[in-house]
């Protein structure tokens, strides 16, 4: 289960960022920010010609002793960054992928809402609920 999930716009400002537990929010914000560099690195490494074939899922961006950071970028250069607890060893790569897939789906639903202006913060309740379901179950 993720401890922090962030949606970053193309211009690298956050559209949505949420983490638990709340007191470590700042640390996760910082982590997400630094991981954006890694995302850019991976994206640019693919090369322009490969954009079409580029895999959306970027995989593990950055492991530390406490947690791991995974990245996912959409075709519109919107990035999803997920921080998961390292102690949660049961998380397989496929599970991370499915979580990103769900995120992506929810994000597109938010986009489809005509009342949502691209570039705004995401306030959608459905999106919130989906993210909550993916977050760590902190009692």
């Amino acid at each position, binding site marked *: 289960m993720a401890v922090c999930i962030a949606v970053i716009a193309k211009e690298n400002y956050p559209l949505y960022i949420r983490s638990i537990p709340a007191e470590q929010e700042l640390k996760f914000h910082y982590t997400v920010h630094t991981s954006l560099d890694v995302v850019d690195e991976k994206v640019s490494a693919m090369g322009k010609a490969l954009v079409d074939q580029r895999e959306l899922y970027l995989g593990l961006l950055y492991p530390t002793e406490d947690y791991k950071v995974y990245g996912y970028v959409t075709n519109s250069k919107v990035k999803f960054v997920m921080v998961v607890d390292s102690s949660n060893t049961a998380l397989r790569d496929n599970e991370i992928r499915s979580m990103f897939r769900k995120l992506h*789906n929810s994000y597109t*639903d938010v986009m*489809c*809402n005509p009342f949502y202006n691209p570039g705004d913060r995401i306030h959608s309740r*459905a999106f919130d*609920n989906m993210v909550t379901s993916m977050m760590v179950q902190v009692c």
Partner: protein
Amino acid sequence: MEGLTLSDAEQKYYSDLFSYCDIESTKKVASNGRVVELFRAAQLPNEVVLQIMELCGATRLGYFGRSQFYIALKLVAVAQSGLPLRVESINTVKDLPLPRFGASKNEQESRHTTSYSSDTENQGSYSGVIPPPPGRVQVKKGSVSHDAVQPRTSTDQQESTSPVVSPQQSPPTSPHTWRKHNRHPSGGNNERSLAGPGPFWSPFSEAQTGSSAGDAVWSGHSPPPPQENWVSFADTPPTSTLLAMHPASVQDQTTVRTVASATTANEIRRQSSSYDDPWKITDEQRQYYVNQFKTIQPDLNGFIPGSAAKEFFTKSKLPILELSHIWELSDFDKDGALTLDEFCAAFHLVVARKNGYDLPEKLPESLMPKLIDLEDSADVGDQSGEVGYSGSPAEAPPSKSPSMPSLNQTWPELNQSSEQWETFSERSSSSQTLTQFDSNIAPADPDTAIVHPVPIRMTPSKIHMQEMELKRTGSDHTNPTSPLLVKPSDLSEENKINSSVKFVSGNTVDGYSSSDSFTSDPEQIGNAVTRQRSHSGTSPDNTAPPPPPPRPHPSHSRSSSLDMNRTFPVTTGQQQAGVVAHPPAVPPRPQPSQVPGPHVHRPVDAEGLITHTSTSPQQIPEQPNFADFSQFEVFAASNVNEEPDDEAEKHPEVLQVEKSSDPSGSLRVAKTDGRIEEKTAASAPANVGKSTTPLAPPPKPIRRRLKSEDELRPEVDEHSQKTGVLAAVLSSQPSIPRSVGKDKKAIQASIRRNKETNTVLARLNSELQQQLKDVLEERISLEVQLEQLRPFSHL
């Protein structure tokens, strides 16, 4: 203070109010805060309130305990009905209407009302009037006021709307009811109290239905009977909000009026349905929505694009955030456009919101859009669904059953992911969870939550597809690359070895499953190959790369094929015999040496055979003697030791027969094994005799078997004379496989399971390896960077 006896309804109501006031759950309520609000809302003069508080003892204690609170409530009821406040009046006054509290959420109302553009005055009056106890009176009120409304002007609407306030009421202009209801502290409170007074009303409502008591009611006395309260608060705000909702034009207002007035008829009709569905769309409302839809999109079966809908709903002057949420709820298929149903649902939610009702987290069932092609039936279904929707937890709406079936019908039809929908509809029909007013209705079902994004659309949704994909991939992951898949390929490749493999498998007596045979086959195949190669090629090197000991189970997939058994067992038996002869050592070598003393070894072999049960193919037993004999004959013939063939033959024969019979007598399972072993042993020497190549270590007994099988095959024909003996053996053998079969299957199943686990673990392992590689790479890169930095640090 004397004891307080409360009726059930009162009990419930009071406990609700108490819990409402007891925000800190301390079981005692301070006299400030909500209690004060509550009493103020009772619209009693201050001195009366003070008197009440004194009477109930709160002033003494300084706070309201539960009993004090109840007493106070009772006194409020007494006061509101105009009776003098006495301590004894608590119990003496029977059939007291429940105390009424208006404006229990004054602040909320004022907030809502301020949001309405035009009704400051209404706000004032409105806030003063708030709906009393949830709906008790409301129902009656509603019907009454609706009647009264019709002839009226805008005030009529207000009347009609005001009574509507109570959610329990058959939802005339349900938004209004919502609003009032919403004002109450958490719907739960209302619902519970609703349950009590439910039966309460009906007499009232009927009594008042016909009357234009609305007028009288309308005049609104300050401590009016509950009904009046309703009417009185039926102020403009409701109407005004309605009006505000359609800021577009006067025409809208008139439409609203029509809607409101028309609603009354429905309400009266629906009086009997005492449950409350605030989310129901009445016919009039729906008609109105449809008309609005037509203004944007003339084709009723078409879509309203998102931008047009955005403009339209922005006119309602709701905050964008709320509009966004409404859109999320109502755009059922997430396509960015609204169908008629979706539009109606959205509109309804907007109306509700404007009237102060909080938006639900999930789309209420009655607002769920139906498939476009079923719109006609959907409309009917909509209505019935709406009717069927139950607002009060306590009662099963009479009309619910008729509506539910229609819902059920529509759902399964419409649903593409049928199983989920059917579950939902079943649940909705069976459960009455729909009745939770402020909880979000039927969609609270996890199924519906999940199903929601998998709409009833005709086109496969991306989500749906992805879900399917997920399911598929998930299933893929769960399916282990069965060894069965692997093995057959091996088998197919090794045509030459197939027979030998089968033979080997057939020889297995332990009841190994076919999977076992498969798994062991490759090994055996390899063994067989190597064995054959080694034997045929007589090159010691060939015996080198033997796969792991196939000993355990050369299960045979076709034990029934006697041909194999006939031929192979022969050789196998001999091979086994030979191999067994040298379990530890390199079989081939010793074989020649074994020849001289086959007899000696035989007993050893027999024992060894029994120990090597795993390696004994089932097929072997069938013709052990046959194999033995031929083997021995050949072996003897080829043997350097020049043992007399006859002796060798006979001895082996006898011994084999004996051995075969002995093992069979001793161990069912081991029997065949033993025989096989014997044959192997017997064949081994023969093989050795045939090929000078030193046989591989014991693990290769099967190989040898196979090899010798091939070699012996031609010889088998020669020894047809042995068939007689073999037949005897065979006859005994068939009985074995039967009992072994069951074990075999069980073992095969377990082996299959183990193999699946193995593959899963193997995959996990590979993934971890991958991760490890990545990590190592990173480490290397970091080290490089460190190296680069190091020189600088020295500077």
